[in-house]
């Protein structure tokens, strides 16, 4: 019985799949907005990863969220109407994944409780409500928001670079690898590397020019 049900389900899946492939061909012939999951990792992984790290503060969790986002995107690819850019669409999914993540870690018993204490472990009494009021002159929050936007802007510009240049630039600037290591890994010589760095930096200056300089 169970087996039959399973095969039925499989059959249904196949029908859906074949339908969607017909649909894809249709879309391809229109040659407008369509999803290209093969290019997702190369084009958007770092962008989404930055977005996620800024929100969950943990690179492992962020990595998983990005991966889940790609899977979810693949599963609901047929719901993609093409009226938003691929990246915007994926960010929208990732946003839900981040919310789900917080919901999950907070649903464990007792974690949802709001606990307030003056300073943990001490008997000190004080006007703690007053002390917790936000400082109206603090720039900290604004800076944090601005820096995150800056990060996404830079990441967006990096993803527009040719593949090799973005790779070299990321390894050198973001991961801070030494010239020697990069040359060994990519099998290029140093002068080659500096030429690519130069081109990447020049394009980035142009790309960021409108908003950030």
């Amino acid at each position, binding site marked *: 019985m169970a087996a039959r049900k399973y095969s039925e389900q499989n059959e249904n899946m196949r029908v859906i799949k074949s339908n969607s492939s017909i649909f894809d061909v249709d879309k391809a012939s229109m040659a407008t907005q369509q999803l290209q*999951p093969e290019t997702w990792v190369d084009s958007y*992984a770092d962008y989404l990863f930055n977005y996620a790290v800024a929100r969950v503060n943990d690179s492992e969790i962020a990595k998983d969220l990005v*991966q889940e986002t790609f899977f979810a995107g693949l599963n609901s690819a047929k719901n993609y109407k093409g009226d938003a850019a691929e990246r915007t669409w994926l960010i929208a999914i990732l946003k839900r994944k981040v919310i789900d993540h917080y919901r999950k870690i907070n649903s464990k018993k007792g974690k949802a409780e709001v606990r307030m204490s003056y300073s943990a472990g001490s008997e000190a009494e004080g006007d703690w409500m007053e002390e917790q009021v936000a400082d109206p002159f603090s720039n900290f929050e604004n800076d944090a928001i601005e*820096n995150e936007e*800056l990060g996404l802007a*830079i990441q967006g510009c990096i993803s527009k670079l040719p593949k090799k240049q973005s790779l070299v630039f990321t390894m050198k*600037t*973001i991961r801070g690898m030494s010239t020697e290591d990069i040359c060994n890994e990519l099998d290029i010589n140093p002068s080659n590397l*500096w030429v690519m*760095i130069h081109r990447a930096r020049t394009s980035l200056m142009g790309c960021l020019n409108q908003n950030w300089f």
Partner: protein
Amino acid sequence: MMISCEKAALICNKTQYREATFMEKIKLRMHLLMCKTCSAFTKKNTELTALCEKANLHSLSEGEKIKMKQQLEEKI
């Protein structure tokens, strides 16, 4: 002591990653005194470095990306 603009740009890029030698830096300084274009480039290049540092960027390593790609391809 005289260097070309290409050489100056190369040293400038190296400086962004703290890889220029002392001699190179002096040569670059000398060049910047004479060359407006390179001065402007150096200024912008330094700004770009500052922006990149401020943005606190993160990225996945190539290995992680390849793994992600494989897992994704299995599902396509």
